[in-house]
């Protein structure tokens, strides 16, 4: 068993599957479809009624409610000193944990041994003790938390990858979530990321077409970005500003004066966790999936930004399709030039039905070598699977099984296309997240006409609303004026 190579393969594999998509039951179950139509009416009402219900309760009620989701964190293991942090997350472990987090969005392609190692590593990080967290807050915000905030819960409500989340009430009465970074972690991870030779060894990839150095460069850059919470706050502000007033997409506002390099404070939100959706009606799950789908593609095409962390813990669900998006630590912003070929690929394959132009853009984006001695039919045959949900306008059900099939396709070294395919560095994160995202939608077993929704969003189509949510969104867009 070759653990680190497989880790690398997993990362790269996730990265390589362009717009992975999950289809099992084409058209879905007829009874289900009818139910959906009926429930859509109800959903539209819910959407309209939403209004200012975002933070319905008082700050204190919210403060109490958010704590109900407190994860079981081992306080007997709490990190008490910066040295404890260094022992637990230093010497490559923090870096491996981040790489593992990235790899973990793929359910397939990782051997059980690798997956176990990486998930154990994530489990191995205990919370900070109340004193250590307070010390970081004091260093960052100029005073101990019980002075800086009107109320401070010393017990964290959630673990973050390199920190933990505390709830608090600000002096002006807002319920907030305060993410506090482990002291010294940024320095140790930055130092460990400097050992490129060792990282390369761990990422060594068997496929000749994959460029380890490009992958490594992108991963290093993204992880380094995550170490500075100010960048995360900037990203969250960008999304919060853009989605202000959106009927179903909620992004908690950043509290500027309480956000620094190692502390980021945002409005506290409460809602159902991803796991709880299992007990919700399929109609509700479909709406939640529709919101996530719209969020991802609107953000990409209009904000030119991709929130790269489809971890189930980063969503809160409120019913009626309303979803709060949390954690903007891993956001990739794209230039128009980077985005253009992606857009053209979708356009020529799905809308214009022009395979040669599709291929030209594939090459232009760097996914395929220009001199690949392959027929365009072969290329289409290989790549089309990644566009399955948006090639035809009809209801499709996403399932988990198919996401595995897509990953396997990516790993299919027998395909002649694989030899000439690669993942350009700018898209590494995008592709990886795509897989994770569709994995999530697959877990919801969500049905929608994804093509119709995509047409609403695709800048080269800008189709009319096709669902109640689309109508509510169109009204929001009209009211808010042009993006950005």
């Amino acid at each position, binding site marked *: 068993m070759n*653990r680190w190579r497989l880790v690398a393969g997993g990362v790269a594999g996730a990265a390589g599957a362009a717009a992975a998509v999950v289809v099992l039951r084409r058209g879905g179950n007829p009874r289900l479809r009818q139910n959906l139509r009926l429930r859509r009416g109800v959903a539209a009402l819910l959407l309209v009624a939403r209004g200012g219900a975002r933070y319905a309760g008082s700050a204190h009620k919210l403060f109490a409610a958010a704590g109900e989701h407190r994860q079981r964190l081992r306080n007997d*293991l709490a990190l*008490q000193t910066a040295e404890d942090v260094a022992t637990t997350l230093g010497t490559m*472990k923090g870096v*491996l944990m981040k790489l593992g987090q990235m790899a973990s969005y793929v359910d397939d392609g990782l051997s059980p041994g690798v997956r176990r190692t990486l998930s154990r*590593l994530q489990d191995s990080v205990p919370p900070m003790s109340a004193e250590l967290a307070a010390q970081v807050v004091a260093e960052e915000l100029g005073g101990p938390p019980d002075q800086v905030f009107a109320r401070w819960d010393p017990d964290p409500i959630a673990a973050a990858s390199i920190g933990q989340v505390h709830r608090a009430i600000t002096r002006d009465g807002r319920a907030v979530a305060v993410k506090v970074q482990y002291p010294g972690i940024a320095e140790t991870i930055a130092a*460990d990321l400097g050992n490129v030779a060792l990282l390369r060894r761990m990422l060594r990839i068997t496929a000749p077409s994959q460029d380890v150095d490009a992958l490594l460069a992108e991963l290093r850059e993204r992880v380094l970005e995550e170490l500075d919470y100010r960048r995360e706050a900037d990203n969250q502000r960008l999304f919060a500003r853009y989605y202000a007033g959106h009927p179903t997409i909620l992004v908690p506002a950043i509290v500027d004066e309480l956000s620094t390099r190692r502390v980021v404070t945002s409005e506290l939100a409460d809602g159902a966790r991803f796991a709880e959706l299992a007990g919700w009606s399929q109609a509700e799950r479909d709406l939640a999936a529709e919101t996530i789908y719209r969020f991802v593609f609107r953000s990409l095409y209009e904000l030119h930004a991709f929130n790269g962390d489809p971890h189930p813990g980063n969503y809160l669900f409120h019913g009626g399709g309303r979803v709060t998006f949390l954690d903007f630590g891993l956001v990739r912003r794209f230039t128009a030039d980077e985005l253009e070929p992606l857009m053209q690929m979708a356009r020529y394959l799905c809308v214009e039905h022009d395979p040669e132009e599709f291929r030209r853009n594939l090459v232009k984006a760097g996914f395929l070598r220009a001199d690949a001695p392959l027929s365009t039919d072969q290329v289409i045959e290989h790549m089309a699977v990644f566009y399955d949900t948006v090639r035809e306008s009809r209801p499709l059900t996403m399932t988990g099984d198919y996401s595995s099939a897509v990953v396997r396709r990516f790993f299919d070294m027998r395909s002649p296309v694989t030899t000439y395919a690669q993942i350009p560095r700018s898209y590494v994160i995008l592709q990886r997240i795509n897989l994770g995202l569709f994995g999530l939608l697959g877990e919801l077993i969500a049905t929608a006409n994804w093509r119709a929704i995509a047409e609403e969003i695709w800048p080269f189509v800008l189709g009319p609303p096709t669902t109640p949510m689309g109508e509510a969104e169109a009204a929001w867009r009209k009211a808010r004026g042009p993006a950005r």
Partner: protein
Amino acid sequence: MSVTAEPYATAAGLVERSAAAYVSGVPEHPADDGFFGPASVTWKISGDLAGPIAGLRSLLMQALHPLAMAGVDQHSGWREDPVGRLAATSAYVTTVSFGERAAAERAAARVRRIHTRVSGVDPVTGRRYEASDPALLLWVHAALVESALAVRRLFGPAIGPADADRYVAEMVVAAELVGVPAARVPASVAELDRYLESVRPELRRTPAASESMAYLLDPPGLDAEVAEIWQDIRYGAVVALPEWAREMYGYEAPPLTAGRREEIRQVLGVLDAVFLGEPGVLEARQRIAARMRAARA
């Protein structure tokens, strides 16, 4: 050159079996704190990442005593199952360090019993040996204690001279457990150094030591990624040897720079992550960490 023609078995499964050995030595609901306890320097040192380097360095030292080497070579099943032999040693050391007193005593009694059956003649010096000889046991003990300190000095977070003395003193009981009278066991760093100096004239590299150590420095059959990591562990162990020991073996090691030290700690971190992925290791670590944190308060 070769004394015995027995081939060595491969080192496949080294990580898995070491992990299982470690887990077996860390009790779930201990009745007492054992012979050291969560506030001891021993626990602190035993938990460091550099453990594999200290372990290898300690074997390199121990093997330089011809009688100790002959005993291992001729009796322990070392050649047929080197990984099993190493795992058994790990399990023993872990049990004595972290186990409750009764468990440590049981493990020690078993070792003493096995030792009574181990005796013979060293083919190189022609001297008779018995594994239960306190002089040999003391050598093995001292080499282990001194290796832990030497490796900690080079690779670990620094520990002060007072803690180093405390560690040597704490470890006296480990020697007693296998049958060395406490009065003969060094109880401070200075005593330990004097003792090692006194043994030096007896030390030499026998063919059995050369062969065994060549095997350990480059174990065949490791998983590819562990084999790469092993190169750094080997370098760490060799560079941490006293110069005279390196010369005896004829090893060369470029001097340790600050940058190289950092790289080696990073590699050790990766190995530790692999180790953590083995069943039960994380839980065993957490049991120890929780007790150590509680003892701090």
